[in-house]
C-alpha cells in the first residue's frame, strides 16, 4: 500500500519560522480581544509585533540587558493577565503596552533605588547609538522605521535643554524635582522646559498625523 506523503512535505519545510496564519492579518485591538478570551496565540502575535520596542525601552531605562529581558516578559505577561482592561477608544495597543512598560520600569528603578549619579553627564545620543538590533527581520517592520524617523525628527526640533529634561524624566524615571536637582536648575525652570517641550512634540506629531499604530 502506498500513501501520499503530505506529512513529509510539511516536515521538510519546517525551518523554525513562525507558522503563518490568519492572526498575522488581525488588528492589534482584535488580538487583544482574542487574548482576553484566552487565546495565547494572539498574545504571541502581539509579542512578535512589539517585543522589540518593549525590549529597547526596557533596556534604555534599566541599562541591564538581563533585567530588560525579564521586564519585557513581565510586561507581556501583565498584558495577558489584564487584556480585559485594554480600551481601544483610549489609545492604541502600543500606547498601552508602552505605558505598562514605563510604569513597571519606574517601579523597578525605584525598588532598586539605583539612580544615575550624574545623569546630566551622559550623552543620550551616544547611549542610543549603543542600542541596536541585529535581528534583520526587524527591517520587515517598515511602519516601525517610519515612526522612529518621525519621533526622532520631533525630538530634533526641541532645544537641547527641553529634550534633556524630558529624557531624564521619562527614560530615567526622575521626578521634576529630581531632574531639577540633577541639573542644578530651579524647579520652575524644569517644569517650564518639560511643558514647552511636550507641547512642541504633541503639535509636531499631531500636525503630521503620526499615530503609534
Amino acid at each position, binding site marked *: *500500500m*502506498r*500513501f*501520499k*506523503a*503530505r*506529512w*513529509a512535505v*510539511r*516536515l*521538510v519545510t*519546517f525551518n523554525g519560522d*513562525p*507558522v*503563518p496564519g490568519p*492572526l498575522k492579518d488581525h488588528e492589534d485591538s482584535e488580538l487583544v480581544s482574542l487574548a482576553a*478570551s484566552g*487565546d*495565547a496565540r494572539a498574545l*504571541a502575535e502581539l*509579542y512578535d509585533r512589539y*517585543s*522589540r520596542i518593549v*525590549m*529597547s525601552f526596557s*533596556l*534604555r531605562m534599566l541599562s541591564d540587558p538581563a533585567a530588560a*529581558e525579564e521586564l519585557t*516578559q513581565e510586561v507581556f*505577561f501583565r498584558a495577558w*493577565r489584564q487584556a480585559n482592561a485594554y480600551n481601544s477608544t*483610549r*489609545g492604541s495597543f502600543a*500606547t498601552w503596552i508602552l*505605558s505598562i512598560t*514605563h510604569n513597571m520600569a519606574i517601579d523597578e528603578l525605584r525598588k532598586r533605588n539605583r539612580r544615575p549619579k550624574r545623569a546630566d553627564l551622559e550623552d543620550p545620543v551616544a547611549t*542610543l547609538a549603543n542600542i*541596536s*538590533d*541585529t535581528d534583520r527581520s526587524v527591517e520587515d517592520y517598515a511602519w*516601525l522605521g517610519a*515612526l*522612529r524617523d518621525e*519621533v*526622532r525628527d520631533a525630538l530634533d526640533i526641541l532645544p537641547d535643554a527641553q529634550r534633556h529634561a524630558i529624557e531624564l*524624566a*521619562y*527614560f530615567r*524615571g526622575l*521626578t*521634576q*524635582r529630581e531632574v531639577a536637582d540633577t541639573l542644578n536648575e*530651579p*524647579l520652575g525652570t524644569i517644569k517650564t522646559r*518639560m*511643558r514647552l517641550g*511636550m507641547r512642541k512634540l*504633541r503639535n509636531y*506629531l499631531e500636525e503630521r498625523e503620526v*499615530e503609534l499604530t
Partner: protein
Amino acid sequence: MSDRRHFQPNPQRRLPCESVRDDLEAWALGALEPTEREQIDRHLSGCSACQSEADRWSQVSSALPLSLDPVAPSAQAKHHLMDRIAGDQMSGVSPRPSIAGAHDVSPPPSMPRRFAWSQVLVAPLFVALIVMFGWTFNLQDQVESLEGSDLQITASDNTMLPAGVQTYSLKTECQECTSAGRLLANPKTANALFVAWNLDPTMAHQVWCVDEQGARKMVASLQVSSTGDVVQPLLFEEPISGYSQIYVMSKDADHEQMMEMNETPMFTPPPGLYEEQR
C-alpha cells in the same frame, strides 16, 4: 532654588480641571511626585474630559520609546513567556479524574524551568536539534529523490529514524476525531520532536507528563498552525523513559480533552491522514 520644595499637597483635596491640565505633561512623563500623581489620578477617574486629555498626552509620551533602535529579546524569552501563559491557562483546570488520577494539576515553578532551559539544558537541546534536523534532512533527501509532486513513501519508512529513536503515537478515545500525532524520541534522553496534524487550532494544546511518583508537569505549549499542524522540539526535565505517562491536553472555554501518547512498535500511518493512491 525650588519654588515648591516644601509644598505638601493634600491628597484628599479635589483639584480643579485647570490645575490638573497644567500638570498633565509631567503626569504623562511620570515626573510627578507620588502625592501629586495620586491627586491627578483621582481627578481623572471622575472627569472624562480631563481623562481624554490625559490619554492624548500619554500618546505623546509613549511615542518617545519609538525613537530608540529596536532590540530583539532572546529567542528563549518568548518560550518562557508562553510557558508561563500556558501554566496560567491551565491553573485551576483539572484533567479528567479517570485518566489523570487524583493529583492536582499545577504548572511547574517558573524559576526552576527557566534555570533548566537557560543554564543546564541548552547544550543537550542543541545536540537534540542537530539530531532532529539531521533526521529531517535525511527524510528530505529521501523524499526529494522521488519524482515530482506525486511523492510516495511506504509504511516501512521508520527505518529512516536514527538508532534508538522510538515513535510514540497520540491515542484519542474520540472516534470522530481526526487528530493524529507522533512523538519521536530516544527514551534515554530528554529531547523529543513532536509532530501532529488536525489538532483544533481554536484550542490551546499543551504537552504534559507524569513521573513515576505521579507528579504532573507541563512540558510545553504547542504552537499549532491555523490548519491544526504542529512540528515542535520538546525538552523534558528528565529522560522520556522516566515518565509513566505523556499526554496532550487540549482545552478551550467550553471543552477539554486529553490524548495519551503510547509507544508504537511499528510506524503506522494515522487514520485519515494519508490518501491512498489509486
